[in-house]
């Protein structure tokens, strides 16, 4: 069973006046089949955790370990992490001019699976995944994220999640900027992947709204660069009622 283990993770970024520590000792274990919601105020370091796990060059790991089934994730390049089974659905997916969605998806699937998917089954697979996410087939011929609306970008991220079948899926504020219909469609996509029982999900969100559609097994409150409190799904209800105030007071960044 795939397990992602984060132990005492410290991460900093280069700022104008030297390095600034954002993550200050994160401990978290995510097992295949589990869903962990990470909730917290803006600036608490949630997204930094997501991008650090995926290997974004902007972030420097200054301490701690991250392993996937015992393998050192921090030693891997960005593409190696993806091939090892770590998937990051981004909050702000990047436009890649000149590369069509269909070409991108196939290149990516080929890299992740280690061989080119059989053309006939692949076309069917993409088509049905797009239908379920209510994406226009014309999307396949558009350039990656170019001119996509916010909702289209998020659906496109979840489309990749469904096709690439990672071991660990990190969803970074996938719910932000979505209307209720889009939120439902995107959540259903995530749930289809979760129902296979083969993915561990790290759901990063600012709002409790998405948790009505995606039921977490664990909820963690993220504040000031570390996990301030952990609990079951009921912790989300407390946050819904009380907000983050009690975690923000006493030193967290705005």
């Amino acid at each position, binding site marked *: 069973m795939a397990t992602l283990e984060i132990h005492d993770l410290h991460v900093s970024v280069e700022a104008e006046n030297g390095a600034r520590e954002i993550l200050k000792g994160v401990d978290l274990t995510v097992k295949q089949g589990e869903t962990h919601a990470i909730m917290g105020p803006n600036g608490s370091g949630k997204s930094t955790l997501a991008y650090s796990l995926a290997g974004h*060059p902007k972030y420097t790991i200054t301490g701690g370990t991250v392993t996937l089934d015992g393998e050192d994730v921090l030693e891997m390049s960005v593409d190696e992490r993806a091939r090892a089974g770590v998937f990051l659905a981004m909050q702000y997916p*990047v436009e890649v001019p000149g590369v069509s969605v269909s070409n*991108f998806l196939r290149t990516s699937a080929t890299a992740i699976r280690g061989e080119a998917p059989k053309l006939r089954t692949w076309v069917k697979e993409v088509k049905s995944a797009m239908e379920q996410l209510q994406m226009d087939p014309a999307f396949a011929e558009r350039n*990656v994220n170019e001119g996509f609306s916010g909702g289209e970008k998020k659906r496109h991220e979840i489309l990749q999640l469904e096709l690439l079948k990672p071991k660990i899926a990190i969803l970074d504020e996938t719910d932000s900027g979505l209307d209720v219909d889009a939120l439902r469609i995107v959540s259903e996509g995530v749930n289809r992947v979760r129902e296979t029982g083969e993915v561990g999900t790290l759901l990063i969100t600012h709002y409790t709204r998405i948790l009505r559609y995606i039921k977490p097994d664990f909820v963690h409150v993220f504040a000031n660069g570390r996990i301030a409190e952990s609990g079951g799904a009921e912790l989300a209800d407390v946050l819904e009622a009380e907000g983050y105030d009690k975690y923000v007071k006493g030193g967290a960044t705005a």
Partner: protein
Amino acid sequence: MAEAQNIPAGSTTAGAIAVAAESTVATRMSAPPSFDVADFPVPNGREEEWRFTPLARLKGLHDGTAVADGTMKAQIDAPEGVTIESVERGDERIGKAGTPVDRVSAQAFSSFAKATVVTVPKETVLAEPIRVALHGEGGTTFGHTVFDIKPFAEAIIVIDHTGDGVRAANVDILVGDGAKVTFVSVQDWDDTAVHTSQHNALVGRDASFKSVVVTFGGDLVRLHPRIAYAGPGGEAEMLGLYFTDAGQHQEHRLLVTHDAPHCKSNVVYKGALQGQDAHAVWIGDVLIEKSAEGTDTYEMNRNLVLTDGARVDSVPNLEIETGEIVGAGHASATGRFDDEQLFYLQARGIPADEARRLVVRGFFAELVQQIGVDDIEERLLARIETELAASV
């Protein structure tokens, strides 16, 4: 690519649409067009038409010090029906398609020994391209070639430049009424070569002309692909592709003069740049004269900057002297393959070198497909792969 997005430091993307009584395209040149080199002052680099060009690397083509001391191995393969002549400079077909617009083109005109005239007779449809292979073997050479495509003939012309040397040449393409011509000029020089050339196409009534300019090599390449119309109903397409490496200067200065009614023009130039001091310049001028009612024109330049240290200057200009047109537009955008794009593709399992290849191939693919000459398309794709392999 989104307009004016991701403009890297060191690029300028400027444009102008002018409705003018007097053409600034013509007046901003330091001298009017002329066949005589003496009519042009020696440029100092501050002139509008020279401000991007490193004069010191022109090997004296601009100041009269270059002398014809080189060798250019030339081979012309033409299908049956095509005539090839070597003619003296008095021949009336020479210079009919256009007049030199800068000192270097005028120098080429004043210095060539004999001109080559290639004629495709009336209503002749060529099954195979006319291929001109020019291989520089060092030193300076001047040249003048005229392609005279008679009415209703159809031809593909490929001029292929390889090797080393300093080359200044003019090419005239006379496209007869109703004729269909594709003209391809490939600059696949060694990295030490210097090449300046003016391509003058005169497009006849209801004729169609496609210019394809492909620039990979050379230390300095500066080309003037130009179109004018001899009658109404002409169509012109200008496609360009360049891959500018470290230290190379590749400059394409286009002009389409709409001087006849109901003509079309469509310009698409795309370039990729990589390496320190790679410099690409694209000037796209379109002039719609008062007589050119019903004109339909569009020009586009796209640049993809792959590494730090490269520079693009892209300047589209559109001048319109009549409001009675179908359409006129232009676009220029310079984007860069940046760390965020790389991260996104890598985060989907795609290794860095493959990610770069994916982006560059995608960038050029559509343009390459429009060329319509199979072996050129294949060679281009292969050449792009080589360039990319060299970059990693």
